[in-house]
C-alpha cells in the first residue's frame, strides 16, 4: 500500500504540486443504541477511503475517494492538482508551509483489551447494565438513552516531503442521557466516557458507576430551584473549567481563528489572564480521548503551552498558519476521517493546577454559585462565551447549598480570565466531542477555581 501511495505522491509532484499528501484509512466501527432497556440496533461498519490534498499555485485542492486502487488514486491526484490550480488563479497571498522534518514510523495500538475481541453480546450486556442502574436508582426516571461506539483501524500518511507514517487508531466512547419527571418538572442529565487506551476503560468507568452518577444528577434537578439572574462570584468545578477553557479560550487560540481576528489577535506575549492561570493543549496524555502520536499532517504531537502565568505564550498551529506566524507547527491538524481535510483542532486542553483546597475556594463567598457539570457550551470569535450548566448549587455563607437547575453562564473570555482569584490543587480531565464543521474527540479539564464574577442566566 505504501508503495502505491508514494507513487501517487510522486505523480502529483510531476504534474505541478508544490506539496502533496495522501492519507488513507481503513476503519472498523461497532455502534450500539439502547433506549429504555431496549436495544434499538446493534451496528457494525467498515470504511475504507483516502483523502488527497495538493498545494499548487499557492492554493489547496482536496479530493476524497472511497476506492484505493492505483487507477482511482491517480485520477484523484490529477483532480486535486487541477482543483488547486483553479483556486490558485484567485489567490493573492499564496499558501506556504512551515518546514517539518520528514518522519518514517509505525505506531501500533496496544490495548489491554482490544474492543475487536470483545463480543457484541458483551457490549450489549454492559450497556444494559448501565440502563438498569439508572432506572433502578429512582422511579421518577422516565427515559435513558445510551450510545456506544468503538473505532479500530489504521491510517497511512505519505507526503512529498518524505514522511511516511502508519498509525493505528483506537477510540472508545459512550454517552448516556437520562430524563426524569415529577408533575410538571422535567429534568435531564448526561455524561460521556471516552478513551484511546482500550476496552479496559470500562473496568474503572464501570456501568454501575456512570449510571449512578447520571441518575443522581437528574433526580437532584427535580428538587432544584432556578438561579437568580445577574452577576455573582462562582466556584467552578473541573468539568465546567474544562469546557470554559476549551470553548472560551481554546478556540480563540486555534491559529486559523486567531488570524481571522479572534479576541487573541495581537495578544501574543501579553498578559491576558490573572497570573494564576496556566493553560496547555496537550496531545501526549496517555490514553486520553484527545491523544495521538502524529497529527493528520504527519507532525508529532506536543504539549503546547497556551497561557503561562497569565501571559499568552502559544497558539495551536498547523503547517500553514505556522509559516504565516513564523511559529512552529504544534501537531494540532486533525481530520475527522478521509472525507475531510485536516484543520486546526484541540487535543486535551486544560488549566494547570494551583495550590488551593476546595474549602479555601469556597469559604469567602457569602452568596454565589458552585458550577459542577456542564451541558454544552459555545464561544464567538470576539470572546463572548456561553456554557450551559446541568449541575449547580448555591453557595451560601461559605458552604455548598441547595441544587440549582437550568443555569448557564456567560461573559467575555478575557474579562473572565482576569477574574480568576484562586486555583485548586485537584485535577480532572473529561472526554468530549468538539464540532468545528468536523467532529473531533477531545478532553478538557483542570482543577476547581474561584472566579470573582460571572453572569448567570437561566431561571425564566
Amino acid at each position, binding site marked *: 500500500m505504501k508503495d502505491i501511495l508514494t507513487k501517487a505522491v510522486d505523480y502529483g509532484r510531476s504534474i505541478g504540486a508544490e506539496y502533496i499528501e495522501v492519507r488513507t484509512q481503513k476503519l472498523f466501527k461497532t455502534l450500539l443504541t439502547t*433506549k*429504555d432497556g*431496549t*436495544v*434499538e*440496533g*446493534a*451496528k*457494525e*461498519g*467498515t*470504511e475504507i*477511503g483516502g483523502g488527497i490534498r495538493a498545494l499548487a499555485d499557492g*492554493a489547496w485542492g482536496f*479530493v*476524497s*475517494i*472511497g*476506492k484505493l486502487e492505483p487507477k482511482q488514486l491517480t485520477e484523484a491526484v490529477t*483532480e486535486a492538482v487541477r*482543483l*488547486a490550480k483553479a*483556486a490558485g*488563479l484567485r489567490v493573492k*497571498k499564496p499558501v506556504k508551509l512551515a518546514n517539518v522534518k520528514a518522519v518514517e514510523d509505525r505506531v501500533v495500538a496496544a490495548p489491554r483489551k482490544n474492543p475487536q475481541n470483545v*463480543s*457484541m453480546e458483551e457490549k*450489549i450486556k454492559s450497556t*444494559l447494565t448501565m440502563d438498569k442502574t439508572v432506572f433502578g436508582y429512582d422511579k421518577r426516571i*422516565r427515559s435513558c438513552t445510551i450510545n456506544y461506539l468503538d473505532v479500530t483501524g489504521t491510517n497511512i500518511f505519505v507526503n512529498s516531503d518524505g514522511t511516511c507514517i502508519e498509525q493505528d487508531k483506537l477510540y472508545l466512547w459512550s454517552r448516556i442521557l437520562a*430524563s426524569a*419527571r415529577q408533575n410538571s*418538572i*422535567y429534568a*435531564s442529565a448526561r455524561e460521556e466516557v471516552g478513551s484511546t487506551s482500550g476496552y479496559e476503560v470500562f473496568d474503572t468507568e464501570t456501568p454501575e458507576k456512570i449510571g449512578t452518577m447520571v441518575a443522581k444528577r437528574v433526580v437532584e434537578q427535580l428538587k432544584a430551584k432556578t438561579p437568580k*439572574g445577574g452577576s455573582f462570584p462562582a466556584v467552578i468545578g473541573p468539568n465546567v473549567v474544562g469546557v470554559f477553557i476549551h470553548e472560551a479560550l481554546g478556540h480563540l487560540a486555534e491559529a486559523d481563528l486567531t488570524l*481571522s481576528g479572534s*479576541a487573541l*489577535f495581537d495578544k501574543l506575549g501579553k498578559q491576558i489572564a490573572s497570573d494564576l492561570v496556566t493553560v496547555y493543549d496537550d496531545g501526549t496524555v496517555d490514553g486520553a480521548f484527545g491523544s495521538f502520536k502524529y497529527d493528520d499532517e504527519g507532525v508529532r504531537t506536543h504539549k503546547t503551552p497556551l497561557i503561562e502565568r497569565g501571559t499568552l505564550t502559544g497558539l495551536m498551529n498547523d503547517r500553514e498558519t505556522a509559516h504565516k506566524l513564523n511559529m512552529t507547527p504544534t501537531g494540532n491538524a486533525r481530520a475527522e476521517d478521509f*472525507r475531510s*481535510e485536516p484543520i486546526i483542532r484541540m487535543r486535551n486542553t486544560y488549566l494547570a493546577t494551583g495550590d488551593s483546597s476546595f474549602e479555601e475556594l469556597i469559604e469567602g463567598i457569602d452568596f454565589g454559585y458552585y458550577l459542577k457539570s*456542564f451541558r*454544552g*457550551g*459555545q*464561544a*464567538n*470569535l*470576539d470572546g*463572548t462565551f*456561553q456554557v*450551559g450548566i446541568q449541575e449547580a448549587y448555591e453557595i451560601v455563607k461559605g458552604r455548598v447549598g441547595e441544587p440549582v*437547575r*437550568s443555569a*448557564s453562564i*456567560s461573559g467575555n473570555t478575557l474579562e473572565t480570565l482576569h477574574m480568576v482569584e484562586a486555583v485548586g490543587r485537584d485535577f480532572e480531565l473529561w472526554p468530549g466531542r468538539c464540532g468545528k464543521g468536523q467532529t473531533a474527540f477531545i478532553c478538557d479539564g483542570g482543577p476547581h477555581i474561584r472566579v470573582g464574577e460571572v*453572569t448567570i*442566566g*437561566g431561571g*425564566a
Partner: protein
Amino acid sequence: MQELIDYGKKAVNVALRRGAEEAEAYLSMSTGTSIEIERGQIVRSTKSMDQGLGVRAVYGKAVGFAYTNTLTDKSIEEAAGRAFKAARASKPDKNWHKLPNQGSYYETTGTYDKKVVALSSDELVETAAAMLETTTAYDKRVLAVGGGVGASVFHTAVVNSGGVEGIDRGTAVGCSMETIARNGADVTPACFEVDAKRVYDIDAEAVGVEAAKQAVSSLGAKKVESGVFPVIFAQPAFRSLLYYTLINAVKADYVQRERSAFKDKIGEKVASEIVTVWDDGLLDGGLSTSKFDGEGVPCQKTVVIEKGVLKNFLYDNYTANKAKVASTGNASRSGLASYASTPVLEASNFTFKGGDRTAEELVAEVDEGLLVYGVQGAHSSNPESGDFSVVATPVWKIEGGEVAYAVRGAMVTGVAFDVLQNISALGSNVKKLGQLVAPWIRVEDVKAV
C-alpha cells in the same frame, strides 16, 4: 442508477438467505464540489465522492445493522451477513412490528437541476469570487473570515423485503459568508449569511452584501440593562432555539418515552393562535424534500400546530407501529454518510406559516425591544423542559420602532414553550434555513440579562 436498486436487492436477498426474517437496504451515492474562502481570499477547492450501503436485518424482533462504503458483490454480501449476525447477537425488541410496505410516491418538484449537475469548479470559483468582492467592497473595516460556494448531486435508494423499492435523486447548491468588522479595538462577533437552494438560483452577491452589512452594523455595541422585552427572532436564531426544544417535543419517540412536554396535549392550545406549523417532506424546492424517507415511506405534509392548537406528532415506522397509526414519513438517515446511519426520527421541512407584516413593520411596532439574528449555546437547552439560556449574537436594540444600535453580550432566557404562546406577530419574509422554513417572529415578554 438502477445499479443502486440491484445492489440493494442483492443485500436484502443475502440477509434473507442467511436466515433474517426481514431485511432492508439503504444506498446513497453523492458527489460534491466546493470552493472555500478563508481570511479574505479563495484558498481551496474540494471534491468528494462517496457511496455506500447500510443493511438492516431483523431476526426474532431483534434488529442488526451493518454498512460499508465499498460497493462490490463481495462487500455487499459481507455487510448483509454482518447485519444478520448483529441481529442474532442483539436482544428482541417487543415493540418491533415490521418494516414498511410499499406505498405510492409523489414526484417532487424543484429538487433536481441539470444545471447544478453540469456546474464546473471553475464556475463555482467565479461565483465565490463575485461574493467575496461584494463583501470586501462594502466597507474596508469588514473581513471575510470564511465562507464558500458548494454544489452536490446525490442519489438514494431503499429496498426491503416488504416490497419497498424506491429511487430518488437530488441536487443542492449553496453559498455562505462569515464576516467580522474591526474598527480600532472594537471587534464585532462573527456574522453569517447563507443562501441554500436545491436548484441553481442562489444570489451570492446578495449574501456577500448582507454578511458585510451585518458586521458593520454590529460595530459600536453597547450593553443593555436587564429587562423583559419584545424580541424579534430572525430565522437563524429561531432555528437554533427550536431545534433543541419544540422540534423534539413533537417527535413521537420523545412523546412515547415521556420526554416531551406535549405528551397528552393533542387538541390543546400550545401556541399563540396566530401560529400554524406543518412539516412538509414534499415542499417545492425544500432543502429536506424527497420522494420517500429513510426507510422508503412516502414523504407527506403533516399539520403539527393549527391556529395554536396541537394537531399531530411526527412518526417514523417504528413509533407509528407502536402507536398503531401511520408513519408520517419522518425517518431520516443523518450524518456525514447517510448509509452509515440507521433511521432516526427527524422533521423534514418544518414550516411556520408566514404572516402579513414586512420586516420593517415588525420592527416599527416595537417601542423598546431586541432584534436577535443568531444565538449561541442553544444546544445547552433542556430538551424536556424547554428551558433555554443563550447569548444573543448578533443582536440589536430597537428603540421607538427603529433599530437603534448593536448590543454586546445579551443573554436571552426563557422556556421555549412559553415563547410559542407569546408569539405576537409573524413576518411575511419566509425563508428556508436548514430544516426550518419560517419568517421573522416577534415574541412578547422575553427576559434579557
